[in-house]
């Protein structure tokens, strides 16, 4: 199968090689090579001598006709053309036009000869929402008097498209004769045997859920109820913005249900973080889309809301001191929140530090905040250090990194910002991802990949590792990001890596790296790996999400130890609302340990906590639930719990340093010696 795919790619370069390439096709499973075209040999003919299930479409002033030749080829003729075109393709109805799957590519081929250069391969698409509409022309056909084969591969079918019709269009005087129409689905991966429970599954397994998210999953927040808040706002759709149609939904992964949440403002590209009590602080958002003349950019909102999982509703807080579109949000050791960066209400860089006081239950006013007036860029990745500083990792969104070294340590209290050296290629770390490696106590940060949407260079393979415990911490180059393949199966080229990727801390202490793409909102890359913080190495070749996950995608850990992935918003303006779930290999290693009791749900700093388990475990960790968007979740962390074992009773010591585990709800996992985690129990870390 793989050889065949490579063969197909090589085909484009050489028409002569094509015939040979049909041979291995025979070896494919029937489903892979199935010709989706209706009546492809034109063997069925209606009373008028026209092929059944085929129809002509066209417009303008011209004389045109179509019909079958004696050899059962389709002849399309045009003369006296002053305008318009004529095309013949499968009839645009439910029975005749081929069914297609969103995200899949198709190989189209036919045999042709034409006397006019004014021919094109034209594609129409069908959606439930808009019916049939013109999609695109993929290619023209060169004039030839001899039969030639032509083959072209479609782009990935956009989300929402369920049928495709295509054929040859003539828009100039002449004659085109075509036959042997074929349309087959491109299978990026050979069909793999599904992993079975109890059998080893070293790469893990993805499942695309049978239902889709009703909202565009641009922001995802795991609630301490185990449900997921998905926020779209206007969802990067200016018409929704103009209608004032803003959406969010609470998704229950266990039940597969969604509860829609009235969304009072356009929270598209807002910031968000978990508060100490499990409510979600959301700040900023979109006050306006850019104009067509390019003069106006996005504008930031100054509003803020607290989402309450108990009532599934947003409650407005006081406003920020300025607008912020794409702000960061980091919860501090005392439960307060600092938010930085983004675009303000005038589309300028927002330079205001925003500070939410947990005690006061509001955002501080301008004169209560220690302002530094620095522009931090968009979604700057600001990770809380053990000392209570904010570490700007260099991960950000949109274009170049910040001036200087592109990474820094920011001390809010003193208002000082000190550059941190060593980040590679800081202007090409747009939509890279940074993660505080597990355990948080080690204070090491990994930064992965990135690109630059403005120069549109190919995303890179850089990784950087920094140890914040060092006296003068600096980034050091880590192993190169592993490479995968593109949608059509082509392996990535030299130096090509990923932006828009996700890094997810797993309870076994590994970091799962998944999704991403090569260029600005295009060219998804299928690659996934495990990073081991103990050895600083990647294990390549994990199973890849079948759904492309580029711009506006996220992946995050569920309390059952699986990883959920949502979103994808390519440049054609579509949005993929499919949800996929990854089951890591640890879920195929037999019976999982179970936390049978947790003496207290409220864990204070420095305390000893009693839990019981049903079998021996090797460690216990607290993982902070996700609040992720745009490859950015600076609050993500896994905190080790030193433990004493007495039979099935474990005594776990909670860190005494609030900065190590900022107050809030955490997932408590017990993990056995094989790295198999329990299902998490939820505990709240904070003051009594």
């Amino acid at each position: 199968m793989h050889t065949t795919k490579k063969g197909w790619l090589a085909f484009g370069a050489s028409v002569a090689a094509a015939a040979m390439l049909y041979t291995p096709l025979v070896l494919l499973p029937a489903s892979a090579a199935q010709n989706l075209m209706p009546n492809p040999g034109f063997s069925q003919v209606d009373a008028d001598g026209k092929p059944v299930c085929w129809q002509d479409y066209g417009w303008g002033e011209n004389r045109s006709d179509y019909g079958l030749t004696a050899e059962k080829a389709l002849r399309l003729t045009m003369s006296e053309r002053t305008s318009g075109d004529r095309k013949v393709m499968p009839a645009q109805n439910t029975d005749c036009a081929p069914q297609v799957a969103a995200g899949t590519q198709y190989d189209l081929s036919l045999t042709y000869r034409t006397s006019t250069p004014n021919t094109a391969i034209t594609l129409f698409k069908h959606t439930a929402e808009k019916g049939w509409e013109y999609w695109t022309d993929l290619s023209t056909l060169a004039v030839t008097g001899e039969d030639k084969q032509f083959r072209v591969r479609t782009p990935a079918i956009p989300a929402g498209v369920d049928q495709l019709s295509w054929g040859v269009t003539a828009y100039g005087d002449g004659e085109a004769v075509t036959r042997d129409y074929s349309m087959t689905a491109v299978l990026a991966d050979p069909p793999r045997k599904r992993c079975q429970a109890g059998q080893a599954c070293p790469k893990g397994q993805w499942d695309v859920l049978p239902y889709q998210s009703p909202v565009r999953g641009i922001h995802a927040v795991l609630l301490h109820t185990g449900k997921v808040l998905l926020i779209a706002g206007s969802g990067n759709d200016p018409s929704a913005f103009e209608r004032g149609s803003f959406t969010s939904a609470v998704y229950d992964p266990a039940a597969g249900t969604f509860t829609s949440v009235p969304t009072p403002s356009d929270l598209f590209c807002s910031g968000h973080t978990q508060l100490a009590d499990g409510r979600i602080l959301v700040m900023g958002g979109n006050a306006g889309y850019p104009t067509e003349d390019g003069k106006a950019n996005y504008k930031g909102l100054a509003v803020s809301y607290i989402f309450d999982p108990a009532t599934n509703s947003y409650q407005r807080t006081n406003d920020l001191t300025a607008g912020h579109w794409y702000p960061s949000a980091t919860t501090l050791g005392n439960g307060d929140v600092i938010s930085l960066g983004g675009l303000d209400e005038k589309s300028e860089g927002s330079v205001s530090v925003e500070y939410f006081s947990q005690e006061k239950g509001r955002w501080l006013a301008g004169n209560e905040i220690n302002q530094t007036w620095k522009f931090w860029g968009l979604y700057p990745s600001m990770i809380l250090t053990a000392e209570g500083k904010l570490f700007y990792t260099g991960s950000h969104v949109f274009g170049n990194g910040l001036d200087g070294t592109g990474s820094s340590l920011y001390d809010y209290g003193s208002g000082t910002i000190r550059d941190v050296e060593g980040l590679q290629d800081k202007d090409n770390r747009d939509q890279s991802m940074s993660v505080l490696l597990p355990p948080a106590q080690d204070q090491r940060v990994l930064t992965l990949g990135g690109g630059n949407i403005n120069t549109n260079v190919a995303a890179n393979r850089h990784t950087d590792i920094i140890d914040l415990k060092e006296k003068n911490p600096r980034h050091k180059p880590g192993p190169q990001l592993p490479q995968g393949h593109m949608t059509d199966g082509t392996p990535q080229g030299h130096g090509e890596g990923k932006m828009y990727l996700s890094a997810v801390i797993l309870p076994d202490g590994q970091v799962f790296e998944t999704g991403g793409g090569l260029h600005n909102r295009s060219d998804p890359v299928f690659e996934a790996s495990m990073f081991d913080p103990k050895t600083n190495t990647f294990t390549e070749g994990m199973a890849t999400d079948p759904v492309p996950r580029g711009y506006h995608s996220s992946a995050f850990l569920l309390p059952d130890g699986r990883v959920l992935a949502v979103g994808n918003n390519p440049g054609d303006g579509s949005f993929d609302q499919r949800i996929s779930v990854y089951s890591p290999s640890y879920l195929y290693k037999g019976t999982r340990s179970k936390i049978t009791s947790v003496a207290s749900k409220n864990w204070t700093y420095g305390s000893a906590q009693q839990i019981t388990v049903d079998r021996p475990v090797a460690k216990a960790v607290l993982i902070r639930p996700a609040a992720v968007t745009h490859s950015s979740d600076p609050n993500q962390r896994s905190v080790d719990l030193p433990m004493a074992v007495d039979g099935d009773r474990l005594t776990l010591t909670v860190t005494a340093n609030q900065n190590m585990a900022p107050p809030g709800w955490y997932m408590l996992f017990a993990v056995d010696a094989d790295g198999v985690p329990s299902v998490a129990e939820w505990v709240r870390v904070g003051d009594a």
Partner: protein
Amino acid sequence: MRRHRLAALAALALAVVPLLLVLVPLLPAQDEHAEASVERPLVTATTVPAPPTTRYTSPPRPKTPVLLPGGYDGCDHAYGERVQCVPWTFPPGTANGCDWLRQHGFGPLTVRGHDRHGLDTNGDGTACGRGDR
């Protein structure tokens, strides 16, 4: 009943102890990772100061605004529907913008502003239309 449970516990303990003996050397990180290993005093603080109640005397806000260039989001919104994102810059090596766009799912695009990329070669107001090559 109770004896049964004790027996089970004993068995579990027997199972755990050798396991721990094996694991302990593998897991010493627990303590060393933890705050104790960080020799700087700041890290051992058990509490983080309450939110500031004092008013800060911040420096004055700079007068020059941070201005951002057009196409900041990587899209040239002069083309197509407003949801679409024609790249502000095509990937290096792109020979023909229209070919790239067709291969990435774009159809013909209405030109709504300045045709920066020169994609509407016949000037009919539609970029990458049938007359544009």
